């Protein structure tokens, strides 16, 4: 396949329907999580600075902006994880005829767990 076609199709989800959206959401969330992995490991370096530096960092991440970012992270984790389970099932030949419905279930489950998770997060 032409390389330009491959790259262009990434950024044109309107061309492929539900399947393309599922692909795009999975890829974008995956890349976001890879970036977060490195950020997380880098941030944990703060622990080397001792209790004062770490506790100051913890106070910072309790701010509304960081709570919003945590919600985004949780959304990415849930979408990628639950959709990944769907992809594994489909890859093993299970539920092939119901791929689209399964993806809608992924979205509903992710939304529900996100709501529950953030309520628990904010009321802890």
């Amino acid at each position, binding site marked *: *396949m032409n*390389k330009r076609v*491959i*790259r262009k199709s*990434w950024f044109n989800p309107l061309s492929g329907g539900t399947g393309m959206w599922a692909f795009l959401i999975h*890829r974008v969330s*995956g*890349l976001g*999580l*890879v970036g977060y*992995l*490195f950020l997380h*490991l880098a941030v*944990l*370096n703060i*622990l*080397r600075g*001792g*209790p004062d530096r*770490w*506790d100051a960092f*913890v106070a910072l*991440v*309790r701010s509304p902006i960081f709570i919003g970012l945590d919600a985004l992270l*949780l959304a990415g*984790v849930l979408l990628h*994880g*639950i959709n*990944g*389970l769907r*992809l*594994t099932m489909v*890859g*093993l030949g299970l539920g092939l005829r119901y791929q689209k419905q399964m993806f809608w279930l992924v979205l509903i489950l992710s939304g529900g767990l996100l709501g529950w998770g953030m309520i*628990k*997060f904010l009321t*802890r």
Partner: protein
Amino acid sequence: MINIMINRKEQWSWMLQALSGGLLVFLLGVHWIAQHYIVAGGLRTYQDVLNYLRTPAVFALEVIFLIIVTVHAFLGLRAVLLDTGLSNQTIHRLNLVLLLLGFATIWYGISLVWSILG
């Protein structure tokens, strides 16, 4: 493209990606709950972190988590890059670079925890 799909090495990559992903659903769930919902106030203080990591079972679990998440992350990155249509020689080099970066990431994570625990 079709060659990649029936290539045995790529089948093993897919299986490893699926297996690591399945394990991560559990491990990440445990990690998220442990870090955000267990401690009073949600987030661990410095001493809470030390006490948490000093438990041998927890340390072992976190190391396993780090290894599996690194494997899954780099296999995923590889899959994304393969989709851009690389030559066989570039794929070979990419595999090597990602393998080295993966080992470096795991080594960094474990050495970081080790240095914190003193």
